[in-house]
């Protein structure tokens, strides 16, 4: 009974010694992997360290000990502190523990091998939060009964999945907008007497594409072919993720106006540039300075997949010349035809369709944190434009036959300039004032239809490592003005409710982005 505490203490010491030997061995293994010049690991050999102090029989082989050393239990037996039986007991416990440890290591190895094959650890599957945005808006406009001028909403709830399959298939990508559960409308074929479109289907995803890089050595000059649905390479804003935008509202170049069109071609909702579309294109970069895209698209917005509309195709191309890594100037064009029947884009008519855009961004290296960018766009929409759900069929101005707005083809023009400055030190560190001014002219041939907006705001970044992480609070005030819906047309498209594009607005948005 008196011996047991000693045995326990010795066992503890021995255990510690064994563990420390394991650690030493592990380090040695690491060293070995590092190259041929590393010192060899300690070799564990069994050694007899002399006769047993009180035994006549040959002692069992001594435990594994490092070269030039001896084990504690051997030493204790040599000094007569422990008996041979105790020595055997200690060794048995060591062997048992060693066996258990080996089993655990084997199990860990097995799980490590399995874990290493998981797609998420091999870059084949990744997921992230593209943008989760909480929005508060206030607008001094008349609102219908039961509504408020103050609104809380979730602006975006976008989960992103992507991965890399191989060198040839360098990326797949899909983005889910969890608010995309509303049924989408279509634009029926017919005259003004035809029944309006009925919402029938929805698109849960907003983006889904895959890249093919056929020849590695061609990249980045011919980098990859991309097909699917994604943000279109039309200027800057259209292609900027909702989780990285500097102001809360989308610019007028993507969408402006409300209600239905009239014969001036300047009224109603106009989606001048759709943000997303179905396409196939080729992308690359020359001289590390000149980026290009050329492709063909459906030209019928992201909803086309759900409503089944396959519109006349359009060609598009953009060249972007970089002055530095983050400053550039680019030219974009879109050429094709559009149709008003079965369209999923507001403000499109039947006939020739084109867009020309020039954009620039200057990110200062002299004044770090300062950035200015701008875009100017002009383009033609065919005659008899319509809004989604309003029947249309053809380019004539007889609405009983061709439906739509009855307007002739129009030339539209829009531009904006945005500047911001991120404060990087001092008490206002991570604050970013921003200002933007924009104009949208729905019909360049007539007056009294201009939309203008000035946005002033400030952002505060809690985390700012774009494009991966961006958590921020944005506060914007928008000074909005709308001249009218063309000569002799009322400004208020929805009488009694007010024109939201002629009323100032206050917006606060809190965002998290992580991937």
């Amino acid at each position, binding site marked *: 009974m008196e011996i047991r505490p000693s045995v326990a203490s010795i066992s503890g010491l021995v255990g510690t010694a064994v563990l420390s030997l394991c650690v030493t061995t592990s380090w040695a293994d690491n060293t070995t992997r590092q190259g041929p010049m590393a010192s060899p690991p300690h070799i564990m050999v069994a050694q007899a360290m002399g006769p047993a102090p009180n035994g006549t029989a040959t002692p069992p082989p001594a435990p594994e000990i490092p070269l030039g050393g001896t084990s504690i239990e051997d030493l204790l037996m040599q000094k007569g502190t422990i008996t041979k039986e105790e020595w055997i007991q200690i060794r048995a416990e060591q062997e048992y523990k060693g066996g258990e440890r080996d089993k655990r290591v084997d199990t860990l190895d097995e799980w490590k091998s399995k874990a290493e094959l998981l797609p998420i650890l091999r870059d084949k599957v990744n997921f992230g939060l593209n943008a989760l945005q909480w929005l508060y808006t206030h607008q001094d406009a008349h609102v219908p009964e039961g509504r408020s001028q103050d609104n809380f909403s979730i602006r975006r709830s976008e989960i992103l999945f992507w991965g890399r399959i191989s060198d040839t298939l360098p990326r797949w990508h899909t983005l889910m907008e969890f608010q995309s559960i509303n049924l989408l409308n279509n634009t029926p074929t017919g005259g003004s007497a035809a029944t309006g479109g009925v919402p029938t289907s929805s698109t849960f995803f907003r983006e889904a594409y895959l890249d093919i890089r056929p020849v590695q050595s061609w990249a*980045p000059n011919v980098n990859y072919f991309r097909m699917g649905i994604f943000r279109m390479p039309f200027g800057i804003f259209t292609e900027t*993720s909702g989780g990285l935008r500097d102001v809360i509202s989308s610019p007028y170049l993507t969408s402006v106006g409300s209600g239905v069109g009239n014969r001036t071609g300047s009224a109603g909702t106009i989606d001048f540039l759709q943000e997303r579309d179905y396409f196939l294109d080729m992308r690359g970069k020359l001289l590390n300075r000149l980026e290009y895209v050329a492709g063909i698209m459906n030209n019928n917005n992201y909803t086309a997949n759900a409503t089944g509309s396959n519109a006349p195709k359009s060609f598009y191309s953009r060249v972007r010349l970089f002055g530095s890594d983050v400053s550039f100037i680019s030219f974009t064009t879109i050429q094709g035809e559009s149709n008003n029947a079965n369209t999923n884009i507001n403000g499109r008519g039947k006939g020739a369709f084109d867009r020309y855009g020039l954009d620039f961004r200057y990110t200062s290296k002299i004044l770090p944190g300062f950035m200015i960018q701008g875009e100017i766009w002009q383009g033609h929409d065919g005659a008899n434009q319509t809004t989604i759900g309003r029947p249309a069929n053809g380019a004539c101005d007889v609405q009983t036959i061709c439906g739509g707005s009855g307007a002739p083809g129009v030339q539209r023009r829009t531009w904006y300039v945005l500047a911001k400055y991120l404060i990087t030190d001092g008490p206002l560190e991570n604050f970013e004032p921003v200002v933007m001014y924009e104009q949208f002219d729905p019909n360049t041939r007539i007056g009294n239809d201009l939309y203008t907006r000035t946005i002033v705001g400030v952002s505060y970044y809690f985390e700012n490592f774009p494009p991966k992480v961006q958590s921020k609070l944005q506060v914007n005030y928008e000074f909005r003005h709308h001249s009218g819906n063309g000569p002799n047309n009322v400004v208020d498209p929805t009488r009694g409710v007010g024109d939201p594009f002629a009323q100032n607005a206050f917006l606060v948005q809190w965002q998290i982005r992580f991937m």
Partner: protein
Amino acid sequence: MKTYRSAILITLIGIVLSGCGPERIFSAKVLDGVDPNFDFAAWRMVPNAKGGKKVQLGGRIVQAPQKDGLVTMVLTQLPIAEHPAYGPTDRERGRGEFLVYFNGKIPTNHLQPGNRVIAIGTTQNAVVVAIEDSQRSLPALTAQCLHIWNTGGKEIADFPNFGAGYQPLEEETYCTESR
């Protein structure tokens, strides 16, 4: 008229063909004297035997504290690829860590872990540094120039369409004042 057209065509072809060549981010003066056959693995094993060599190494930032105008950067060595995008690539397994000293100021966001770096400098003796609370002896390099891609851990080739949208990749070259 035909002459002009031919000239424009030849110029365009020249631009395209010149774009097919390997990308250069450092000047010839900076690259002068760089050992093209430098054996990183051997240097890492016996750093003190290969001091004073001018080398070019690519890597990924593990940690990069900056103090008193000195950046002490621990990098995981990565091979430098030409395709699909020029720069250090993580598609192959790294061959170990090394240390880079750089005299100069670098914006904090360019020093975030995961960023890709190419360093040109002279090898020094090994230095003991603390990495995640453990002491490590690493071969060291005193950099004359650095080129940093602000990828935040992603591949250079993943840009500009990393995430859901377009985001140009920030990259910058830093050289010591003597350069």
